[in-house]
């Protein structure tokens, strides 16, 4: 049996625990220094971190460079937005064959957002995964653009202007998402569970097939595997995670719009994964934090803050294969 007691893994475990402790303590720290808006900022970091982790599952472990991942985030957001709009409007979403009313119940809407993300990922992945390399990047981009323009075309739901939410999703009377600290902890809990699930997944038999296919798909076939189904399944799981993050994003911003699906957003997610460390699962969360903190810190100085981001990203790509997480957690054994 492979033991996980080597030094690299100990260091990674320590890094994860310290990081988690910091995230748990953050609302108190922000309160102590009187900068409450950090809670809101870090809520966004957790939500986009969730989307980035879901992308890492297919990009880092499966070698599938999806350049349309923001589409799944947008779909999740629109599930929340559209159902909320119908509550406000009082009209049903559909009347045939069954009557479906709008709802703001988080226990209904959030799983539905994940489910819709998964369904769209199934359709898009089934076609895209017949290609690899640049073709795959371009096809996923094309699908995302289609959904982007479809969202713009949704006149009922604000078209280009999107939907302003009048209410956040409800999670019963004891959890009030309007309380920003509560919402922060809900997002943190979801992220922790999702990362944990992905961690199990990447080490399972299923995960080994997906990872093997990234390294050498031809060899996998020679061994008797048909990796297409495994890659598609990973793509669907990834779509579900992104859809869920979209639902959270809609609640954080109290707004849903086509911009969530733009190709720039997809690109930003890739940047977060690469910056934080591909194939590390924890790295993309750090990447999301680095990205949003850089944006926050530099946007005051110049609107062209990406002039700084560019060289930073270049530096990370050239000097750290496992991104920022590689520096923090050390060169952990990739076979694990």
């Amino acid at each position, binding site marked *: 049996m492979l033991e996980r007691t080597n030094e690299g893994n100990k260091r990674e475990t320590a890094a994860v625990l310290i990081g988690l402790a910091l995230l748990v303590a953050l609302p108190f720290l922000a309160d102590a220094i009187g900068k409450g808006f950090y809670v809101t900022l870090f809520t966004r970091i957790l939500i986009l971190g969730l989307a980035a982790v879901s992308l890492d599952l297919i990009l880092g472990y499966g070698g599938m460079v999806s350049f349309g991942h923001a589409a799944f985030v947008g779909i999740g957001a629109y599930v929340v937005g559209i159902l909320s709009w119908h509550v406000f409007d009082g009209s049903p979403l559909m009347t045939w064959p069954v009557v479906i009313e709008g709802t703001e119940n988080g226990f209904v809407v959030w799983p539905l957002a994940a489910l819709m993300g998964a369904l769209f990922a199934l359709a898009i992945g089934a076609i895209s995964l017949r290609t690899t390399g640049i073709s795959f990047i371009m096809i996923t981009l094309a699908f995302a653009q289609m959904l982007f323009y479809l969202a713009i075309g949704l006149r009922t739901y604000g078209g280009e202007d999107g939907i302003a939410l009048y209410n956040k999703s409800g999670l019963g009377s004891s959890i009030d998402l309007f309380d920003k600290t509560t919402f922060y902890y809900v997002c943190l809990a979801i992220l922790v569970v999702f990362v944990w699930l992905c961690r199990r997944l990447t*080490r*399972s038999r*299923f995960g080994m097939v997906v990872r*093997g296919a990234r390294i050498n798909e031809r060899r996998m076939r020679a*061994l008797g*595997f048909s990796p297409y189904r495994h890659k598609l399944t990973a793509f669907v799981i990834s779509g579900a995670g992104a859809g869920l993050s979209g639902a959270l994003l809609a609640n954080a911003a109290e707004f849903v719009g086509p911009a969530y699906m733009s190709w720039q957003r997809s690109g930003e997610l890739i940047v977060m994964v690469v910056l934080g460390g591909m194939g590390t699962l924890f790295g993309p969360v750090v990447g999301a934090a680095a990205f949003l903190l850089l944006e926050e810190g530099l946007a005051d100085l110049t609107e062209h803050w990406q002039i700084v981001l560019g060289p930073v990203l270049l530096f990370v790509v050239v000097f750290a294969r496992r991104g920022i997480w590689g520096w923090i957690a050390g060169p952990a054994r990739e*076979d694990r």
Partner: protein
Amino acid sequence: MLETRDLYKRFGGLVATNHVSLSIEAGELHAIIGPNGAGKTTLIAQLAGELRPDGGAVLFDGRDVTALPVQHRAAAGLARSFQITSVFPPFTALANVALAVQAHAGHSFRFWRDAARDGRLTGPARQALDLVGLGPRADVPAELLSHGERRQLEIAMALATGPRMLLLDEPMAGMGPAEGAGMVELLRKLKGHYTILLVEHDMDAVFALADWITVLVNGAVIATGTPDEIRSDPEVRRAYLGEETV
């Protein structure tokens, strides 16, 4: 066990496989020799299912598998090793072989349990590693193994898929004399337990191991027979073995 009928493959103007008919009996070690460019690897690729022949048929166990893709032939028990070492470099030797066991065990939609702690995978994987002599190196990432060890790992992976027949494409390629001798020993151990098709440049190894030898020149079979028959075949000597001391 494995049979080809009138197999034909051309790349543009080059005929890579020219009406090759082979018959490999169960349990025998059948070697294919021939000078560089004779079409040996092209032939193996067609047997494994990576290349579609332009004409003729491949029969495995009496069943026509000509149209069957690689993964299905592998699942049917036709395992191959690659001339260019083709392992998963970041994975440990054990994980490499465990993946091959998993391919054979056929349960890959398991999402929860840690594959590296799954005795049903690592148990047979360790056995295969021990058999090829890599047991002590099980926990070393494949990228840190020596060239010879990686060739052994290739064989272990082929064995772990639970094959009924092995297609070995130059298992001794790039090996030093000591490593080569180890590989000959290993093949001798496997011989009789598996039906083996061996493509190899090392004549000493081929003549020491093979029950039956087929000589391929320019894509065509020019002779086939026992090692003694091949050694004394005047056409083989002229066409191919001329400069070799056999």
